[in-house]
């Protein structure tokens, strides 16, 4: 098997099967050697089985997010890690819908996925996780994740790069030696920036070192919004898809990320 030089990473899909299809096409057109999914296939969006069928059909390797951990273990909530009552209210609506609409076979399959993975890209050892290497639902935001903390995680994990998602906003911070952290963002909903496109991330190893490309994905968001309405999903979730601004799950945001949004 040849060495991997270019890998695409899909963060939270949140049942956005249209964005997932679009991202697959873009990643293939960009000639990636592999695609990994970092968990949270369901949440927010409609018809959760559709995203799972696409992932399984494309034989995309995947790790569990907190959604897969909760759905496969029969948990009563998503274990998203929110602390605010309003955020938890919407998180519960999202989870209850997803749980009720995910086939038992798929829930069982989620439980067979690993909770983390280690792969190599060039001379870099990548530690793939959903939230953080130590906790599936830890939020690693750019503005509250210090560089010394990242260095500690790399030491603890014996890795060069942490590749994570869970927050829904992509960012990266690499040192001069190419070691650091990449949050690959989310395919499921926009990055709270007033734009309707969503994001995945490509890591490429080349002669100049590691290159990080956060890739915007345009997709038929209006069609997704209509499907969400047909399924009776909350208007707040639909508004986010239509406007690019988060309307729920906001209290967990640090000051800088919160200030960048509308709500």
């Amino acid at each position, binding site marked *: 098997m040849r060495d991997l030089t270019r890998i695409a990473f899909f963060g939270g899909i949140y049942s956005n099967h249209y964005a997932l299809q679009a991202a697959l096409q873009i990643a293939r057109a960009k000639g990636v050697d592999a695609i990994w999914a970092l968990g949270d296939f369901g949440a927010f969006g409609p018809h959760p089985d559709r995203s799972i069928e696409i992932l399984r059909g494309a034989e995309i390797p995947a790790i569990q997010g907190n959604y897969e951990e909760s759905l496969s273990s029969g948990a009563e909530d998503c274990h998203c890690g929110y602390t605010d009552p309003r955020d938890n209210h919407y998180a519960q609506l999202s989870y209850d819908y997803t749980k009720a609409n995910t086939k038992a076979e798929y829930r069982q399959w989620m439980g067979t996925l690993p909770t983390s993975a280690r792969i190599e890209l060039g001379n870099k050892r990548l530690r793939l996780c959903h939230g953080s290497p130590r906790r599936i639902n830890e939020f690693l935001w750019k503005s509250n994740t210090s*560089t010394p903390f990242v260095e500690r995680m790399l030491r603890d994990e014996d890795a060069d790069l942490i590749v994570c998602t869970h927050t829904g906003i992509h960012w990266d911070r690499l040192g001069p030696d190419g070691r650091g952290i990449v949050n690959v963002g989310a395919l499921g909903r926009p990055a709270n920036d007033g734009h309707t496109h969503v994001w995945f991330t490509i890591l490429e190893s080349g002669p100049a070192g590691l290159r990080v490309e956060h890739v915007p994905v345009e997709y038929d968001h209006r069609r997704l919004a209509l499907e969400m309405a047909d399924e009776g999903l909350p208007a707040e979730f639909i508004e986010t898809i239509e406007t690019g601004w988060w309307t729920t799950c906001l209290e967990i945001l640090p000051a800088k*990320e919160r200030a960048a949004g509308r709500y």
Partner: protein
Amino acid sequence: MNLVQLERRPIGAYPQVPLVALDSVWFQVAGTLCNLECTHCFISSSPTNRSFEMMTEAEVAAHLEEARGLGVRAYYFTGGEPFLNKAMVPILARTLAQGPACVLTNGIPITARLAGELSRLSAGSEYSLELRISIDGYDAQSNDPIRGEGSFEKILLGVGRLAEVGLNPVITVTEACEGVASRAGRLKFLEVLRALGLSQPRLKILPLLRMGAEEKRLRPYQAHETLAGVELDRAAIDKLECGHARMVTKKGVYVCPILIDHPGARLAATLTESLVPFGLSYSACYTCHAEGLSCAT
């Protein structure tokens, strides 16, 4: 799973919490000195309480350096009132160069000039500068008996000055504010904040710690409010500040921001030496576990 093995112990003994990871370091940067004398303050801070003196910039800097080597994620500043410390702005500048910072303030010392300086500090760092402002009522009538005559209006001025420079503080309210923990109380408080012009109101509600001045205001802890004999699993430990943080004071490093009046909670002179397990034998530990108190933002 990275399970924490707890030692076996006799029934009635207190659970031991290991320092799972040093994620947050707190600084009691203003000691116990405060411009207010709140009737529910669990360490009885006041304009005259000098049980803990203020920390100097050099003292904070030495601990920041140690914290950097230990891979600390975030920093918190408390007191007393942190902005009574004249070195607070340079201390924050130093901190924001290596991680996110959160200041727990009553908001009253925030002049237009200080708000401007904080705004510049925030804009100049890739890390978040959080301001947490304490209010204890929906209006002056409910707040002032706790935080002092005229304090409500003065706090709102501080909040307004931050809002004017684009800083959006987290408002913290203790359950001394009647009904605030209920859904209706929470919504009412959010309306108060929106009326102040905060378009993205951020609210954190805290249970009361029945010690210090609060012992006399309502009641002290009762005998049943103890963790004696309680087993804590990893999920419970993960929610406790003492499993993930330490508190630096003028007198050394304590297990958490709450227990500084208890000599047994002083662990060491340095952060490195303070990374030891701690027995939850204090009544305040009951509030953290049973009522889910988290000092973190």
